[in-house]
């Protein structure tokens, strides 16, 4: 498989420089690269949401194995502590961005993909640590004296999803 096969349309916005596929949105933004083991690494970037979602749909159709990476890892300066960063980016985008709803629409097992990557890298402790740190942020609440109610930073749906995510991770590991 080559990077040329992953180009989505005939527009002039696509380019390949080095080992990476780029998409032009005012400037060239890295989209994905292929590993030596023929595994595609897609940058989960909010700047090019539509392109990433389309690419994931294409990769699922093709039946290729792929994982996600954080955008800074395209830069050599951002490789330090990459396991922490990748796991954090996986979970953080799941909570904050529109990727969650898009992946739910296409029946893509996002958490299963994360678990596969963790098993490949053998960094289960990192996942646990990052998950626990983010859990505090997701369940953060403040008391409003005017209304006399508690207010959460995140919506109830996301909080429930996140709190039950650990069970899902363990099931994925067992399977």
């Amino acid at each position, binding site marked *: 498989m080559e990077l040329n096969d992953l180009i989505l349309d005939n527009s002039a916005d696509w380019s390949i420089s080095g080992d990476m596929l780029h998409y032009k949105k*005012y400037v060239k933004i890295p989209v994905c690269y292929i590993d030596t083991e023929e595994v595609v690494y897609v940058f989960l970037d909010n*700047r090019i949401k539509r392109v990433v979602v389309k690419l994931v749909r294409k990769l699922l159709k093709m039946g290729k194995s792929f994982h996600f990476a954080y955008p800074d890892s395209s830069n050599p300066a951002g490789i330090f502590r990459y396991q922490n960063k990748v796991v954090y980016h996986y979970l953080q985008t799941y909570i904050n961005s529109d990727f969650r709803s898009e992946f739910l629409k296409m029946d893509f097992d996002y958490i299963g993909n994360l678990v596969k990557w963790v098993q490949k890298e053998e960094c289960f402790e990192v996942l646990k640590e990052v998950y626990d740190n983010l859990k505090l942020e997701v369940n953060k609440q403040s008391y409003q004296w005017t209304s006399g109610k508690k207010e959460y930073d995140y919506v109830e749906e996301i909080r429930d999803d996140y709190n039950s995510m650990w069970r899902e991770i363990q099931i994925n590991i067992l399977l």
Partner: protein
Amino acid sequence: MRDRAWRRHIEEKVVLSRLRRLQNHRTWWHVEDANGYWLNNAILPDHIGTVTAHMYKTIKTKYKSHKNKYSPNKTNTRKNSCCWGRPGETPNTREFQTRELIKVKQEYGIK
């Protein structure tokens, strides 16, 4: 020549120039990028897709429901705003010439 692709190209140029200005102003400020990370020294691509997109993009708002098409003769640039009054009234522009042509055609009864 001045089709949609040209207008898009010019719009991109305008956005990039605004982004460059924004980047120069905020070099020492913490900037939140589109992925939710706070950066100390943000570079140009970090500003794309952020919450502050209205600062560099021409967008629709509740006060302004349409987006103007870019045209150098219609917009109030330095060239047009000096002595010829309203933009588009400069004699050597496409808009002015078409207006003149229509008048001539109407005189001869063509249009």
